[in-house]
């Protein structure tokens, strides 16, 4: 029996500009940690081989330090690693791989397949047929040769490729690096390990996308996993099990506030964000000043707790109640101003009016709070 750990799309070197600098740094750092976890999983599950199906690096030109860091992260598994380049780190004349080779960063147990030729791993009785990308994009099927590749009969035939399996994505999506559907069967493969799509996905009985081991976007997919593949023997269907490998959970919430209880629910949800959550919240609907303040405070608290919080309140209309206005003690022309701002939320300057109203409410609230503190003294 052969045990494999199938992973892909590590995207080492990816940065997260949409977040605050400290959060972004931690998210980038997490990708190395995840590789460490993969190595630990491989060791823990006594796998024979780890397959990495492309896009190991986010970019071609990374600092030597980054390559070394990756190699160190992989050190936790001493068995064979087989890596192929993907579209982000294609094996060009000069690439991250030639750089790594010059650095002698990777030890002998890490096999980097830069040529489409069979890799015989006699010790474990398997042959890996790699389809490395040698251009950034190609419209030829690089797995074509798998079918004609002769391998010793007793050894498992394992395909390793990076690209788009044909016939699954919508026609209009331009998908380079095509892989013919049914390639595993056609090329008599025991397992075809694919990379490129960041969510784990089974294509057929022997063909899987592992997805990225650490989620890197809000799009809902089965990312943050690696696949533990067991091949009982030649010709037998593989047994595939997803292992959680990601550290951060990426959520995207779209909340609509219509009735007061909606706000309570939203606040509860926001309060529930934990240290491993990366969250995107967009809130729409109407809200009074008190509610707006509460929402604001809750989001601020969540930012303190969660790894990243992106909040979009632009579709949320401020609707102060008479009590709000009384509480603000916005007498005289300030009251007029508030009325105007409320009305303007329906006009062309809606966003600005809303912000202005929020600001004014904030100033008045601060003054009131200050006054109360003063009188309390």
């Amino acid at each position, binding site marked *: 029996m052969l045990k494999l750990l199938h992973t892909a799309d590590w995207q080492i*070197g*990816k*940065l*997260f*500009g*949409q977040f*605050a*600098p400290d959060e*972004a740094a931690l998210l980038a750092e997490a990708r190395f940690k995840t590789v460490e976890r993969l190595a630990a999983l491989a060791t823990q599950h006594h796998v024979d081989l780890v397959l990495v199906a492309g896009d190991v690096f*986010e*970019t*071609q*030109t*990374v*600092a*030597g330090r*980054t390559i070394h860091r990756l190699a160190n992260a992989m050190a936790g598994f001493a068995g064979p690693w087989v890596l192929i380049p993907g579209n982000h780190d294609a094996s*060009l*004349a*000069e*690439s*991250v791989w*030639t*750089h790594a080779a*010059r650095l002698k960063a990777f030890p002998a147990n890490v096999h980097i397949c830069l040529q489409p030729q069979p890799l015989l791993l006699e010790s474990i009785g398997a042959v890996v047929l790699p389809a490395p990308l040698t251009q950034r994009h190609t419209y030829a099927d690089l797995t074509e040769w798998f079918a004609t590749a002769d391998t010793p009969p007793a050894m498992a035939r394992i395909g390793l490729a990076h690209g788009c399996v044909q016939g699954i994505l919508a026609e209009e999506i331009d998908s380079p690096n095509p892989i013919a559907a049914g390639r595993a069967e056609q090329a008599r493969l025991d397992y075809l390990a694919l990379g490129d799509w960041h969510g784990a996905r089974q294509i057929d009985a022997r063909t899987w996308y592992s997805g990225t081991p650490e989620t890197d976007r809000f799009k809902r997919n089965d990312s943050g996993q690696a696949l533990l593949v067991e091949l009982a023997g030649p010709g037998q269907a593989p047994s595939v099990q997803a292992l959680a490998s990601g550290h951060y959970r990426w959520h995207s919430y779209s909340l609509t506030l219509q009735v007061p209880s909606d706000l309570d629910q939203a606040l509860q949800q926001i309060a529930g964000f934990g240290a491993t959550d990366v969250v995107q919240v967009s809130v729409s609907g109407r809200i009074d000043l008190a509610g707006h303040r509460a929402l604001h405070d809750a989001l601020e608290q969540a930012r303190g707790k969660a790894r990243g919080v992106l909040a979009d309140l632009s579709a949320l209309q401020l609707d102060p109640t008479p009590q709000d206005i009384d509480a603000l*003690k*916005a*007498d*005289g*022309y*300030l*009251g*007029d*101003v508030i009325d*105007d*701002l409320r009305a303007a939320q329906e006009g062309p*300057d809606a*966003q*600005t*009016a809303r*912000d*202005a109203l*929020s*600001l*004014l409410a904030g*100033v*008045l609230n601060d*003054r009131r709070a200050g006054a109360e503190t*003063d009188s309390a003294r």
Partner: protein
Amino acid sequence: MRLSRIRIERLKQFREPIEIQDLQPGLNLFTGANEAGKSTVVTAIRAAFFERYRSGSVEDLRPWGDSSASPTVELEFAIAGTHHTLMKSFLGKKRCELQAGTQRFDGADAEDHLASLLGFQHAAKGASKAEHWGIPGLLWIAQGTAHDIKDSVAHATDHLRTALKDSLGEVASSSGDQVLAAIEGSRNELLTATTGVPRGPYGEAIKLQAQLEQEIERLDAHIAAYRQNVDTLAALRQEQATDEAQKPWESLREQERAAVTALQEIEHIELTLDAQRQRLKQVEERIVLFREQLEAFARQDQEVARRIGALETAQAEHSGAQTLVGSWQSNHEQATRHAETARGQLRLARQEDTRRNHARELEVLQSQAASFADTLANAESERAALLELQALAAASAVAHEDIDTLRRQDQQLRELRIQQQAAATRLHFALDDGCHMQIAGESINGAGERLLVQSTTIILPDFGKLEISPGGADLAQLKQQEIELSDRHTALLQRLGLPSLEAAEQRHQTHARQQSDIKAANATLKTLAPRGIEALRAELAVKRVRIDEIRQALQQLPPSPDGVAAQPTVAQAEAAEDDARQALAGVNESLGSAQIAASKAHNALQAAMRELENAQALINAPDRVQRLASANASLTDARAEQAALNERIATLSAQVAEARPDILKQDVERFGGSAKQYEKSFNDRRERLMQLDAALQSAGAQGLEERRAELMRDHLQAERRIVELKRRALALDYLLNLLREKRRALTRRLQAPLQKHLNRYLQLLFPQARLEIDENLSPGPLTRGNGHGTESGAFETLSFGAREQMGVISRLAYADLLREAGRPTLIILDDALVHSDDTRLTQMKRVLFDAATRHQILLFTCHPGRWRDLGVAARPLETFKTLAA
């Protein structure tokens, strides 16, 4: 508001309590000297309202040197009919009690109640300042601040708006201005105040983003170049691999070698061909040589024939020239004879001519010599006569000056004598007959007259002597002069040897006549011998010598031949001789020419004979025939060899032409060049690959794309920050504009009623004048008539006095406005209007009296006299102290 009682204890000036009662609803005039405590009363009222009773910052309320006192103020007043009693004591005993009707407030409650009633604030900490005083700050005018209205109004504006909101039927804002200021401050942190350009963190974020963008662009260019290089590297490697596999230069080198071999063969043939051509050239040269030899033999024969002809011609020419010389020689002899004859005739003609000339001259000379001898005799006799005359003239000569002197002396003597007679004593006498007398020794008788010019003794015989002395002194002098002159006259005559003047005159005339004769004789002599007698004599001698010479010449001439008359004249003989001579010269010349020509012909003949001899010597050389035959044979041999060579050369040339060595050379060059090109490009490419590889490795090591990702991350963050700040700036700007707009609108609503009240007072002070109210509700420009129109000036440009007056009436107008709104008003004037003149003060008194019909006014002054006609009794402060005591 109506204040009815004030009690002050242990506060500043008042160590002892004072109490002011019976305050009137209208005007209340308090007087007092300086230091009497007017300002202390005002301070006490202010402290009672403005200062917190717990405040520690009111030490100055204590009387000087009384550090334990508790300054206390008690006030009784009515607001809207409700009676209020306020007791406040500070420092030592901190108390505050307010009884408002039935309600009772203690401590801070009491204070806050009053603040909201009157419209002011308390200081958050420390002593109360102007900005806290609100409406009372406006209506209670401290000493010397009446003119300063702007700040007071500003501090009161919010309170005014709040206080007036009911009367406006509109809500004014209690804190609008602070909010506005806060918003404005926040907005100005992000945008410049006037132009709204991003600044502060907003501006910096934009700058940062631009910087990042620029850096990303730069990096993108690097990355693009890097990628391009990677592609180039791949392509080059492909080419290199292909070349290495196919080695295209090798086949080219093969072709090059084949071409070189073919070329070498052809070059060998070409060498042979060159040798043949060399030989042909030599043969051809020999042919030319032989031909020239044969031609030289032929030329020798021709030369002999030509020389014989030339000799004959020379001989003919020589005999012709000899003949011509003979003929010219006979001509020459004839001409010589003819010339000699002509010369003999000319000589004879000239001799006869000389003879004739001498005879003629001799005749003339002889006659001239006779004439000269006559003239000479005449001239000599004439000269003797002249000499005689000259001797006579010399004897009779008297000098002109002497004559003149004599004449003058004679004249003067006569004048002296006349003068003496005129001055002399005239003595008439008529002596009787027989009687005589002696006058000056002279015996006189008869009658007569004498002139006595000097003392004269007259002796009258028998009678005595008479001594008569003529009168006058000059008579003697005249006599003396006469004697001196007469002496000189006589001396001169003696020197001249003449008896008298008349004799002198006569001799002078004789001398003149003789001079004239001498002149005539001289002229005659000049005519006869113009150059003198000696010259005449020399001339005569010359003539006579010449006569002798000619006679001698005639004697020496040969005797004249016969038939002299047939001789030709000299001129004729000369012409004939000239002709003959010229003819001889012409013949002589022709003879010379003929002789030269004959000599030349002779020489030519000699030369022709020598040349013929030489030419014949060559032909007659002994080996000449043999040499001619040998030359002919050699020429024939050489021609045969030439033909053979030409044939071989043609064959070889055809071979070379067929092989095209030039094209073969090009082939060698072409194949070699191509191979070299391939090799070079292969090597170059290898070099390039190494360089590119190294460059890419170093660029890759820099982590360009990783760096770009970092920059993109920062750029995204910067962009997000800009969006946030922009939203905030927009919102703040929007809010600020809205606040300002609303505030302005509200201000405009407040302005109208205030303007109405203000005008009411202003008309009392300046009829027809108008004081604008600006948007801060402060007095603006004052417009008033100046007799011929209107003038307008900003409030600040008015005189201090006028500003003070405007300040007071503005405050009164506010008071009216507040009263209309049902708000409490109390007006306090502490020594106000001290800068107003009497006229204005009179008007201001009318204003105050009018205001006092609506408001309670407390007026404190140290000039009671100025306020005597205010219609109320002045209440000196001293009386209250006394009362209290």
